[in-house]
Structures are given as C-alpha cells and as structure tokens.
C-alpha cells in the first residue's frame, strides 16, 4: 500500500516537472486564453515522453509497469498542480476498456498507441453518469444513435469508444472522430477544463471491442477511472492543506500568527485526519488493483466518495481560512475550489457512490 522506490521517483519527477511547466497559474492563463481545448497538446507530448500515458498499461503493450499505485501517484501530482491532460480519459479509461473488453488483436493494435500518447475519447455518460441498466444510445445494424454527456478529450481525440445498448447487451463501439453524423459540442467548465456533449446520428461503427456483453468490462474500467479521479482529487486537497497551513503560519493579525488560534488549528487537524482517511481508502483500492483483484466496486466507490467529500470540504475551508484573499481570482485557492466541483461530478458524486456501495452491500 505504499510506493516503492521507482514509484516514488516517478512521483517526484512528475511533481517537479509540473510545478515548473504546468502549475496552477498555467491553468489560469489557459482558461483566460481565447478558444477552447481540453488540454495543451505540446505539454501532453512532453508528459507522454516522461511516460505519463503508459504508467499502468501492460508491459507487453508498451506499458511501463508502474502499477496502479504508480498511476495514483501520477494522478496526485496532476491534481496537486491542476494540470489538464488526457491521462484520465485516454490512458486510464480508454486503455482499461480496450484491455478489458477488447480482443488480443485489438489490445495489440491500440494500447501501444495510447501508451505513446495518442488520445482516445470514451463516450459513456448519459445524464450525470453511466447508466448500467439501460442506455439511450443504441447500436443497431452497424450504426450508432443517441447522445452522450461529459465526454473527456472529445475535441482532440482521433478515435472514440462509444458505449451503447445492443438489445439486452451493452457494447463498446469504435468510431472515427471525423465520421459523418457526429455532432460534438465542446464547452469550457468553471475550472477551465473542457467536456463535450456528443450526438450520434446513424454513425458508422468501425468495429466493436470484443464480443458479447461488455458490461463487466465497462464497470471495471469506470471503477478504475473513479479511483484515478480520486487520486487527482486528493493531490489537490493535499496541496490546499499545505498552502493553508503555510498561509496561517505566516499571516499575522492582532499581533500574532493566525495559525496560533486554536479554533483554526483544530479545523486544520480535522482536515488532515479526513484527508489521511481518504488517502488510505485510495491506497486500499490501488493496492487491490495491483494485486490483480477482479472486483473493486465497493473499494472504488468508497475511495471516490471520500475523495469527493474531503476535496469539497477542504476547498471550502481553504477559501474561508485565506480570508478576503481566498475569494479573489488572484489566489490559486479559487482554481482548486472550482476543480473540486468538476472532479466531484466526474464518474459519480458521493450520493451516487454511496447508493452504489449500499446496493453492493445488500442493504
């Protein structure tokens, strides 16, 4: 449940690189620049060269074998620096879908491309999240019809994986991004990131991933994506706590450091406890994945719900504890505040995951 030497080095390298090349201030500029794109292509090239796109992929398909704990460490570094990349959408979600639902041949064809930094987009959400029981997007007679929300990196992906209903099965369809009949609207969210809403109107499908029902593979891939978002969230939450503690330790009022006020100390201590709890839940899920566990559904929901809650709380508390400066756009706090709300919705908010955890728990 703890990082080995290579994973620690990876994390440190990535942290240093991002703090230098893509810190929160870079997100602010990115957001304020005209035009809308879900990530900085040049930066992604550099990150892919550092291996970010290939961390947890199987080594025979171009992966680096850093394992899921390694992936978690990378996501934490991205979250800490508020760096926008297609790691989550492509290297995690698309790769896991291909790896779990695809044939050997499909794996060999696509995973090395992802590992090298090529970007795949996955269209899976309808409404607020994935609907495991019945999808409105249908696959029939070789074409797709329907609509998807919250698609990550759709604006810059060359290929898409679309989750669709085929009779009583769910399938994953591979579609070229420039296929006729696709209507894709990309909008910037409050935090500067982008998501797309996509309509499919008789869109021709290149091929399906694997054969038969892919429901289990979809659920497993989404679990891993949820855990990856949780890691990003906890990276952000930890950065916020550090910045808040630093601010309280420095800022003086009424002749003393405000960090000496016991009420503020207790709030920070409480936040630290909840953060460490959430980090433990995350570590538990990653550890099980590295151990080859098949089903981490409850662990994934636990990790995502706890990460959701502490990131929201931490960002509110950090804003308050920074006083007047905390509500200005000048400080980074507001960027984390907004990122926390966006990540909260990615792959399910806490009510969704609590409901799922309870259902899986049989009560």
């Amino acid at each position, binding site marked *: 449940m703890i990082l080995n030497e290579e994973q620690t080095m990876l994390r440190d390298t990535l942290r240093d690189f991002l703090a230098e090349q893509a810190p929160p201030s870079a997100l602010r500029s990115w957001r304020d620049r005209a035009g809308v794109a879900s990530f900085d292509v040049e930066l992604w090239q550099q990150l892919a060269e550092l291996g970010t796109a290939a961390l947890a992929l199987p080594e025979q398909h171009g992966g680096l074998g850093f394992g899921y704990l390694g992936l978690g460490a990378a996501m934490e570094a991205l979250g800490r620096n508020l760096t926008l990349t297609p790691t989550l959408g492509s290297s995690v979600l698309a790769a896991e879908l291909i790896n779990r639902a695809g044939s050997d041949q499909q794996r060999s064809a696509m995973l090395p491309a992802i590992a090298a930094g090529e970007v795949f987009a996955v269209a899976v959400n309808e*409404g*607020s999240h994935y609907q495991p029981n019945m999808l409105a997007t249908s696959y029939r007679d070789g074409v797709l019809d329907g609509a998807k*929300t*919250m698609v990550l990196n759709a604006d810059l992906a060359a290929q898409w994986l679309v989750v669709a209903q085929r009779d009583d099965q769910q399938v994953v369809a591979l579609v070229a991004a420039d296929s006729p009949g696709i209507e894709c*609207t990309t*909008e*910037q*969210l*409050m*935090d500067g990131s982008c998501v797309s*809403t996509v309509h499919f109107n008789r869109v021709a499908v290149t091929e399906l991933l694997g054969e038969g029902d892919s429901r289990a593979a979809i659920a497993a891939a989404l679990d891993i994506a949820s855990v990856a978002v949780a890691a990003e969230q906890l990276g952000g939450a930890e950065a916020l706590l550090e910045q808040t503690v630093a601010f309280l330790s420095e*800022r*003086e*009022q*009424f002749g003393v450091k405000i960090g000496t*006020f016991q*009420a*503020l100390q207790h709030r920070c201590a409480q936040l630290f406890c909840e953060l460490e709890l959430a980090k433990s839940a995350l570590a538990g899920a990653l550890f099980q994945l590295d151990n080859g566990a098949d089903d981490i559904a409850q662990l994934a929901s636990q990790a995502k719900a706890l990460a959701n809650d502490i990131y*929201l709380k931490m960002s*509110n508390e950090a*804003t*308050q504890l920074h*006083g*007047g*400066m*905390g*509500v*200005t*756009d*000048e400080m980074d*706090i*507001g960027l984390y*505040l*907004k990122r926390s*709300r*966006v990540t909260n*919705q990615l792959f399910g*908010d806490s*009510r969704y995951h*609590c*409901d799922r955890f309870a259902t899986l728990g049989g009560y």
Partner: protein
Amino acid sequence: MKDYQQFRQQTRDWLEAHCPPSQRQPVIEAEQIWAGRDQYFHNNEARQYFEAMRDRGWTAPDWPAEYGGGGLDETECKILNQEMARLNCRPPLYDMGIWMLGPALLAYGNEQQKRQHLPRIIRGEVRWAQGYSEPAAGSDLASLKTKAEDCGDHFLVNGTKIWTTKADCADWIFCLVRTDPDAAKQAGISFLLIDMHSEGVSTAPIKLISGASSFCQTFFDNVKVPKEQLVGELNQGWAVAKELLKHERKLMSSMSAMVENEQESIAELAKKHTAVDAAGRLTDGSLRRDITRHLMNQGAQDLLNERLYHQARAGAVDPRLGMTIKHIGTAELQRKDELLLEILGNRGLSWENPSTSENEHTIVKNWAYDKAHTIAGGTSEIQLNIIAKRALGLPG
C-alpha cells in the same frame, strides 16, 4: 404638536403624484440610481423621480434642511418610509455618502466640512467610496498601514485600500489612515476625505472567484490631501470609524436582502433535476433530507428575525440574539448554494455556456460569490469570538 396625520396624507398624495409606475417595482441591480459624476438613469421616469425626491431633500430625509436634507423628525421619517413601502417606491439614491459618510459628518464633521460635502451628497452629485480594508490587515482592521504624513498644510498619503466598491466610478473616498506610526494600533489612526481626482490616486478592479466584480483596489502614491479634509481630531479617527462600522453591518444585511431574487424553490429545482416517485417525492432520500434540514434552518432563521422584531417592539431586545444573525445567515446561505449546485449536477459546472440556462448560471455565480459572505463585514470566526465572549461570557 405636529399634525402627523396631515403629514401622512400629504406625503401619500405627493408620492402618488411623483413616483412614476416604473419606480414602484422591486429594484434590480441594473436600475439602481447611484450618485456621482456619471449618474445613470435607466429611463426618464427614474430621472424625474430622483429629481423630485432630491429637491424635497428626501434623498436624506432626516438630515437638517439647512444642508439640503429633508429635515424630518423621527416620526415623519417613519411615516415617509411606511408610505414609500406602501407604494413600493424604490430608494431614490444609492451612495456610501448617504448611507455612511453623512451620519458621520453630522456627528464628527466641522461646519465647513458639512457645508462642503452634505449638500452635494444629498443632491447625488458626488459618489463616495469607502477606504477601510487593506490587503494585509484582514479582520484586524486597526493594523492598517496606509500612512498620512503631516506636511504643514497638507497630508501626504501613501498606501493602498482594498474592497473599495466601485472606486473606479467614485469622486471622493473616506479613508482611515495612520497618522502616528508610533502610537498603539488604534490610537494613531485618523479619518480623511480624499478627492479621487487628486494626483497619485489610481484604481484597479478586483477579479473574484465568481468573475468580474464591483470591487477595486485603490492606490495612493504621494497624494496631497489638504488638512481641512481631516474629520474629527488628529489620531482620533477610530471613533469615527466605529460609528461607521455600525452602519456598514446594517448595510451589509440590507444589501444582501435587496439583491436576493425570488428564485425557483430548492425543492422544485430538485424535482426538476433529480428522480421523483409516483407520489411526487424525491427518490433520493438523503438529498430530500438535506433539503429539508436546510428549509427548516431557513424557516427557523426567519422566525429568529421575527423574534427579534417582537422583542424590539416590546422594548426588550436580547442583544445576544443579534450577535448570531450574520453567522447563522451566511453559513446557511452557503449550505443552500452547495445544495443547489449539487442538484444541478453536470449542469452546475459552468457559468456562461449556451447549453445551460440563465437560472443555472445565476445559481453557479451565486455559489462562488457567496463564499465571500462569511468573510466580508466580519468573518464567521470573528462572529464566533464575539458570541463566545459577549453572549456567553466565556473568559479571555
């Protein structure tokens, strides 16, 4: 004795005659009539209404008539307010001078200052800004650093003020400045009036987490301020400031009441955006309970205000109750914002996208903007300190 009944009838008739229909509706922000050099009227009726009220001195009804005020006594003021409320008349003028500086000048200003400033405030010719807060001071207002050096016939002012609302449109600013750097904190502070058109004054807008705002930072770089613009005694500005702070707190709460729009109820919104069972109940029982708990708190909060009102009417106000209002209200408002955002789900993640509605944009903007409410006008932490010590009598 005055004939108040007659005053009421005359006032009612006059308002009926002079307050046009468009000025008898709840005011929205864009239609507020602010004072100052660039005074803006959203339509001709607004101008007529303002000018009629101004000429009667009813932009400042309780100020002495000799400075252009209405010269009304307390009872007349109350009658005027009641009659304006009866017709839904809008406030004729918005200005920090009306709300805050005027009362302070009447209490602490010398005759020359009153003659110079009060008539122009009443006539809406000058827009005033407030210069109290500083970037490094936060809740500890008295630690302010903007300094005014005594240079014979004038002060030389250097420093910066933050959270000055619409300083870029203001003509004058009233400021707390440090005139004795060696004195203990509150002892060396003076109260100065500064012409915003003086050389060395500049402003920069402040961007908030909710986007552009009406707040500015104001910079003073070797600004010369004539000694006549010192209000009250040298180094005694804290007394004037304390007087004003009372008005500010009152203002903060009335302002937030003014801005609040009647929105779709939170329960209705939840029914629209989340699942509902056959009986019309929200399917998500935990969301349903969180909404209920918020509505109950909000209901209790309204009743707390009603209790205060009844206490005031009976002349038996429990001062401890008033100390709780700001903290309770702002915390609950933020909880409501969080719930609303959560209910919107994906649709609550952006503020100006074409795919989301105006109502959704408002919810998201408010969510971000309202984060300031537990900080501005006395942080929640300060409120809790006050309650602990003054309401509960805890030691220290």
